[in-house]
């Protein structure tokens, strides 16, 4: 396949994106255990499972690759798209389109900033690249998460990031299928609804954790 063609690049970005979209509910499932009233026992069991299960161990590098592909191809595709109109219009476009679909690059960038911070807070801590806060084991994600969510700034940024991720996902799901050539008069409208529902569940699910910890500690 001519990998440097624009359609091939977008298809790889779409496939990597769909892979990431499968991973997200798994992460949400584990995170929601933070809310179990058992002093972090069930969360720790899940975290332990994720850290030791051989299948998950194999999946981790694949996940990193998925992120890398999605981000790199996203940047490449956006760069080529920008270059395609060197002189812009005086009057901005007012065509009848969905607003958020035009800002996939921008919403993606916000999520990327969050991802960098998230990796610094957890993954780099786990592998020992950064030192944990005093008195906390570097594998104790439960305490680490609770400390982070005590900060209203961190919680606000966390919720805002997931709001932007929701905007991104709302367009992403149906867009990925269209890019991969899937468009059907009966199923595409359903897919659009499913994509929006998925986006709302992800944003609401992840935001629930800091909200609940802030208002009902």
């Amino acid at each position, binding site marked *: 396949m001519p990998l440097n063609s*624009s359609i091939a690049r*977008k*298809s790889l970005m779409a496939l990597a994106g769909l892979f990431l979209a499968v991973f997200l509910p798994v992460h949400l499932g584990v995170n929601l255990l933070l809310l179990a009233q058992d002093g972090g026992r069930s969360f720790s069991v899940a975290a332990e499972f994720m850290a030791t299960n051989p299948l998950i161990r194999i999946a981790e590098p694949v996940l990193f690759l998925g992120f890398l592909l999605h981000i790199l191809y996203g940047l490449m595709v956006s760069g080529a798209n920008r270059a*395609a109109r060197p002189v812009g219009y005086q009057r901005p476009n*007012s065509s009848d389109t969905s607003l958020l679909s*035009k800002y996939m690059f921008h919403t993606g960038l916000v999520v990327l900033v969050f991802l960098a911070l998230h990796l610094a807070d957890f993954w780099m801590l786990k592998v020992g690249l950064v030192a944990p806060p005093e008195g906390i084991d570097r594998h104790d994600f439960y305490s680490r998460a609770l400390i982070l969510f005590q900060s209203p700034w961190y919680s606000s940024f966390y919720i805002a990031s997931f709001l932007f991720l929701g905007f991104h996902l709302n367009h992403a799901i149906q867009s990925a299928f269209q890019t*991969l050539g*899937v*468009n059907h008069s009966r199923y595409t409208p359903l897919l659009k609804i499913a994509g929006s529902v998925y986006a709302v569940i992800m944003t609401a699910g992840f935001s629930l954790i800091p909200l609940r910890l802030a208002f009902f500690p």
Partner: protein
Amino acid sequence: MNYTLRIWRQENAEAKGSMVTYKVSGISPDSSFFEMLDILNQQLIEGGQEPVSFDHDCREGICGTCSLYINGRPHGPVKGVTTCQLHMRSFKDGDTITIEPWRAKAFPVIRDLIVDRSALDRIIQAGGYVSINTGGVPDANSIPVPKEQSDDAFDAAACIGCGACVAACANAAAMLFIGAKVSHLALLPQGEIEAEHRVMKMVECMDGLGFGGCSNTYACEAECPKGISVTNIAILNRGFLTASLMKQKEKPSKGDSL
């Protein structure tokens, strides 16, 4: 009716252009957009100034020659029409109307509002045809084509190649245009045989000409004067991916080797 016009003026491809403001008055609400521009040009000629250059030909909405990006929309504010079929009653008395050329790297400005759209012709030359002579109109039902497929091919064939899709697209992508050409030929038996070769060649040409890629905002479909559906872009993507992945290894030629 009276209007203030803000029009892009550019002497030639190399010159630096700018927006120039003009006033036109006493325009009938029933005059077409081009008749209004004709009146402006008459005023300019009588005042010893250069008239505004713009593309137009049939003025019946069928040839695809006219363009113009009017108030942020290709072919102006009315859905499903070309600029030549736009009338001044679609604007309010006293409105300021901003008129710009199509903007894309692949569509360089030649003069004022005229851009070079031959990039679309080059895409057609790359593969948008059937190589053999398919003869005259075949007898009814001698080549079976399902009704739905024939309708879809006809809808795609309605594309007049005006380039509004490129002008509207946030990425200056030509994928609705190519999608329409690919489906229109691939959905019919005469064009189906070369479908894989065609889609590869047309996409390769599109990328080489500096068009962007589709990010599925669907501004193209919203602005297409012929209502071409973005389903054709999915057909294009599907065709390209299948052709790329399923391409067989080339066999050494057995014939013509004397």
